[in-house]
């Protein structure tokens, strides 16, 4: 199933520079494997009302500063943001592992230089990932982003890596247990 990537709309929740993965999901919650529970704890230490705010808005777009997602390689970070209702993240720059993880779990992310001073908390933004541009309807201003490589776009359009892997395992018969030892 291909989702349109050109019109992701949402209200901005703004964050500063260097938001790390311990900020996004504190490590004491990592033992919980239920992502919908983790979602309720997202950003707990630095913005305790985050989950409720996103629920009240019915989804949001995060605007970040430099090195968004620095710290550990935990995939629970983009996973729980997505589950909390974050539709997309734009930032000055991302930590490479966080960027890759986000694409893999189907959370669209885009580097938009200057976005942290341009977009303000509460702005309504439309982010076009196919053309790599963020637009604010209120004053019809926009900021160009760094175009995403085709394989990322493809992955996010498909809804993340899991969908692709599901096809792979069926094709390769890996959805069946290993043949018993000694049998042909």
């Amino acid at each position, binding site marked *: 199933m291909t989702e349109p990537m050109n019109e992701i709309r949402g209200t901005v929740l703004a964050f500063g520079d260097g938001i790390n993965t311990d900020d996004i999901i504190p490590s*004491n919650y990592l033992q919980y494997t239920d992502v919908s529970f983790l979602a309720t704890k997202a950003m707990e230490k630095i913005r305790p009302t985050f989950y409720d705010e996103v629920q009240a808005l019915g989804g949001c777009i995060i605007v970040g500063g430099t090195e968004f997602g620095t710290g550990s390689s935990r995939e629970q970070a983009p996973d729980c943001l997505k589950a909390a209702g974050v539709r997309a993240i734009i930032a000055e720059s991302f930590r490479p592992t966080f960027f890759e993880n986000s694409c893999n779990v189907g959370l669209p992310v885009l580097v938009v230089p200057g976005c942290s001073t341009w977009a303000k908390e509460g702005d309504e933004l439309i982010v076009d990932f196919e053309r790599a541009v963020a637009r604010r309807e209120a004053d019809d201003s926009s900021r160009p982003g760094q175009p995403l490589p085709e394989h990322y776009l493809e992955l996010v359009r498909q809804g993340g890596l899991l969908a692709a892997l599901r096809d792979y395992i069926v094709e390769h018969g890996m959805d069946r247990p290993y043949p018993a030892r000694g049998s042909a």
Partner: protein
Amino acid sequence: MTMGLTVAQKILGRVVGRQVEPGERVEVVPDSLLANEMLGMVIVPKVDQIGAKQIDREIARRTMCFMDHGGVGATPLYVGIHQSMRAFCQTHDIDIEEVGAGICHLLFAEKGGALPGGFVLGTDSHTVNAGAYNTLASAGGASEILKLMVTGSCHYTVPHTVRIELTGSLPQWVYSKDLILYLIGEHRARFAGGRAMEYTGEGVGCMSVTARATASNMAVEAGAVAGIFPCDEILREHVEARFPQAEHHWEGVASDPDATYADRIDVDLSSLEPIVACPHAPENIRPVREVDAEVDQVFIGSCTNAKYEDLEIVAKILNGRKVRPLTIVVPGTHGIYRECVRNGLLEVFLEAGCRVMEPGCHACFGGPGGLLGPGQRAASTTNRNFIGRMGGDTSTEVFLMSPALAAATAAAGKIAHPDDLPATKPTVDLAARSQLRIMEQR
């Protein structure tokens, strides 16, 4: 005209089977794969979600799995995660170490997972630790590792490299921890965007392999995707003594003299001083004597600084002294723990009043064991001091430092330099104990 190649390019060139360029995204099969609780927390649930009953046989063979984050039977949820990991590893015939055996990165090295010229991926950001072994070692996200386990390969971006030219040698009380804290504090921006650090120069020779690992380990805090050391005599001897049977396919890899670097940093090791990283980021560095802070807890552990030589430094300083705040010592692996027992270090720790916990991560990442409460302040030999990283909220403070400073701080009750402690007489004859040990071995 062909340009020279960096270590990262050469290792990946071998893996991919052709010359590769920085910035290129290539399909790879790592020589070994490190997995920890991330397997049980994220990968196994996703394996179930996609309905995979099999994983790639070759990747299973190359994988080493560790249970270090959850502690020994510490919480019901972690016990469950460990059960699912054991079951997964049994089904897929994957090598797994029991809980309490040690911290993944240190055990991985002890077991020969990191060998010169190798390419390593792991589910944990500090997989970069293996860079000390002349290995290109990086972390991958859980889904990327899942893809590797299912399809037998994954993708990796060839990093640009920042060359770190080391001259001189480390003065007394200054360690590889101070070197990496200095690089993080002074040069962090240069490593951003997925670059690799490559340490080089004669200064490398003053550091043991495990000391180098501390400077590789925190490459990720500097913003780098890898922290690679060269393969010199010291590393060659280290590897040959421990893994005489190892398949040394690659002998060690060095950059070409005309290799292209994205940037270069020169560090005169003899000019460095003992450094503390203040809350709440590893880049907030200050010389130790400029920090005036009493602490509620000292934590000496983690993949960064819980190696035998780290604990040896701690024992030398604490010998004949008593700790003031709650002081927790966590030997990095079961093997290191045994060495501490045999050589009298454990006796020193216990006499000084330290609490010694079983090998594992514990409070380093906010796991069970040694957590802080609101308003508490800790001195720690770990690698991250983000808000709440060791438990607690914004009112909690963590100061990162070398084992020597942590030991001095434990004895003084406030952040301290070992030279500023009042003189004391050792109570345990550590030299005689290790002497005895050498005689036993003969």
